[in-house]
């Protein structure tokens, strides 16, 4: 009786004590990098390697170079579980500590942060995801999504299919199916695919898969009936794994099955085993862990036991992506430090740094990456950066991803007007005056 009351009292006290541990502003002796991760929840298998790559690069900078410009970096992880509300709570908690840039790795959380970050003057760097029309920097001053976006990716995929069919003229009459996750993210590619279907004359079939996509029998029965020449997939999480397995089960030629860059990771092909051999996906950076930078990370970070994950994870597709994300942010910080002549930069400075990203192959080589990604140039009006898309293929025996195409440039002449139209609509609805970028 008394024990029960004591325990209730103790638990309430513990909960109340936790309430006191909220945050206050931090002194700026370090450069504070918030890291919104999801190491738990339904998307943890994808969130973990990304978070590891992200953290390892900053650890490398700290251990090898003593930070950026001599100031150490502090990375604090906040676990969102891919939940939008928790993401917002993480944002509120971390922004007061001098956060320099947010990369939520979640389209839902990105949408939440777009209005808030613009008011709080902290850049949101949603690399290859988030709101596509944020590529129009005149309306979305604080949002960046370089090196490329979903709409550009869709156009690059059509180019790839065209190249495989022997020319864009041969697309006429071909059947292309788009299997997509029934959410805002999955639907992103649809308008572009429809516009291009009218232009090039292919038959487009749109097949939605309901969240979470654990059961896709009806989708693949429809594929069986339709017998499309090519399948493009915009999936995420378990939907990818089940899709690859179903495609293998019905005997669909895997090399005609192209996933987007969130559907092409090691996690997605593991359950299908040998059946996934030949599955392709798009990407905007190289797979594999054999670059000079990876060796550096292994030598400096993992040898000292400071690695965020397992050493075998270095070089996985999403690890490289997290690493790339960290590279862009650290280069932006460096650029801002040089331009504004101060070591302790703020969010506004880093925004400028991101907006003036201009990295060519020599710059990448200096960082230890060769043929890893195309030239990236971001500008005031163009937050998409002019990145290129390439196709990689899974080798189930060697258990590795390898490039099977050249770099494709997206059809910017078709995509850019669409982006500007959507950005203008957003600006009108929210009473935003677009900047003048001349």
């Amino acid at each position, binding site marked *: 009786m008394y024990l029960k009351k004591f325990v209730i009292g103790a638990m309430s006290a513990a909960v109340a004590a936790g309430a006191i541990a909220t945050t206050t502003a931090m002194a700026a002796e370090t450069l504070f990098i918030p890291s919104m991760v999801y*190491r*738990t*929840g*339904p998307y*943890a*298998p994808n969130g*973990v390697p990304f978070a590891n790559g992200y953290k390892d690069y900053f650890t490398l900078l700290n251990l090898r170079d003593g930070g950026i410009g001599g100031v150490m970096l502090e990375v604090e992880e906040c676990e969102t579980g891919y939940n939008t509300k928790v993401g917002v709570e993480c944002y509120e908690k971390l922004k007061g500590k001098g956060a320099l840039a947010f990369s939520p790795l979640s389209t839902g959380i990105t949408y939440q942060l777009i209005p808030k970050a613009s008011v709080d003057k902290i850049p949101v760097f949603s690399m290859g995801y988030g709101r596509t029309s944020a590529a129009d920097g005149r309306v979305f001053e604080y949002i960046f999504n370089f090196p490329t976006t979903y709409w550009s990716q869709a156009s690059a995929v059509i180019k790839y299919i065209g190249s495989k069919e022997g020319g864009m003229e041969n697309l006429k009459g071909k059947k292309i199916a788009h299997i997509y996750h*029934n959410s805002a993210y999955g639907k992103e590619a649809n308008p572009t695919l429809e516009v291009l279907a009218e232009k090039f004359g292919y038959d487009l079939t*749109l*097949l*939605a*898969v*309901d969240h*979470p996509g*654990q*059961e896709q*029998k*009806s989708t693949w*029965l*429809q594929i*069986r*009936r339709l017998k499309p020449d090519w399948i493009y997939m915009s999936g995420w*999480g*378990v939907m990818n*794994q*089940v899709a690859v*397995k179903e495609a*293998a*089960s*019905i*005997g669909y030629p895997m090399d005609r099955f192209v996933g987007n860059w969130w559907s092409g990771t090691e*996690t997605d092909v*593991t*359950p299908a*085993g040998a*059946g996934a051999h030949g599955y392709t996906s798009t990407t905007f950076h190289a797979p594999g862990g054999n670059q000079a930078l990876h060796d550096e990370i292994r030598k400096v970070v993992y040898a000292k036991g400071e690695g965020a994950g397992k050493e075998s994870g270095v070089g996985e597709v999403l690890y490289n992506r997290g690493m790339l994300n960290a590279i862009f942010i650290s280069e932006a910080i460096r650029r801002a430090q040089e331009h504004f002549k101060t070591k302790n930069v703020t969010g506004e400075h880093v925004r400028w740094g991101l907006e003036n990203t201009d990295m060519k192959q020599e710059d990448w080589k200096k960082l230890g990456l060769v043929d890893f990604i195309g030239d990236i140039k971001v500008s005031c009006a163009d937050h998409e950066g002019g990145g290129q898309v390439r196709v990689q293929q899974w080798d189930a025996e060697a258990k590795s991803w390898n490039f099977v195409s050249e770099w494709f440039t997206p059809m910017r002449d078709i995509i850019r007007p669409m982006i500007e139209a959507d950005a203008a609509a957003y600006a009108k609805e929210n009473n935003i005056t677009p900047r003048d970028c001349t």
Partner: protein
Amino acid sequence: MDILYAVFVAPFVDMVSYPAFFTEVVLGGLMTGVMYSLVALGFVLIFKASGVFNFSQGVMALFAALTLVGLMSGTVPFALNEVAWLAMPVWFAILVTIAVMIGLAFVVEFAVLRRLVNQEPIILFMATIGLAFVLEGVGDLMWGSNVKALDIGIPTGFFEISGVQIQKFELFAAATAAVLVAVLAVFFNKTKIGRALRAVADDHQAALSVGISLRKIWIIVWSVSGLVALVAGIMWGSKSGVQFSLSLIALKALPVLILGGFTSVPGAIVGGLIIGVGEKIAEIYWGPLVGGAIENWFAYMLALLFLLFRPQGLFGEKIIERV
């Protein structure tokens, strides 16, 4: 006029003009339905014997599958590194997993069921939700949250009979479900424990007065349910890899439960088959008219429709209220 034609005539014309494909759709639906029934069976067993709607059934399936994969690959629990000599052969790993699920049943009975005897069903439902959270956290901590491939040697590939493709995996799943239901039927009808379970399902007080130990029955029922969860976890986990989303299959099994009735094993099977076939036919023949992805809510609408005629499901016990 066009719309009326498209909704009421065209799909049927389609079905009739391509009978091979229609057969494939129906077969596919039946197979999917069997997979749903596997999950629904676990719910039914526990509800029948203890009146508890066990929301954590999905998480139990996930936990069982995680344990199986962990044991097969020789992962050290909580430390998450793989040790080669700990890796067990499939059949042994399955036995150990069954033992773990029985142990879990003991723990659940001790920590949760015993303390909540005679509470309202909604309180027990809530307690199983708490249990689901705990199992989810423990499972993640013990075995890690990456996607694990599950391959216990179920045959893959397909064969074709006059244009209709039949997946070997699904035949295997259907056979397993049939065997499971047969074993459960024998267990419930021919053994002493089975009789005791049916007695408890009928009336707790009467069963107590005849000398049946409620606690023992609950442990047995939760263990059997754990076994069923393991089978369901293996089937679903082989298709998608073992990961958190596996626990969401419980939501797919709910329409099966309401259609078949919460307290009926044959109801779970028949309900599963009806929902499976209904879902697929609706999605493939009527789905394209409205843009697809109607499966989720269609299953519930279908079950709702049946409920309007039989409020306790097809085979469920009639709720008799006396004033």
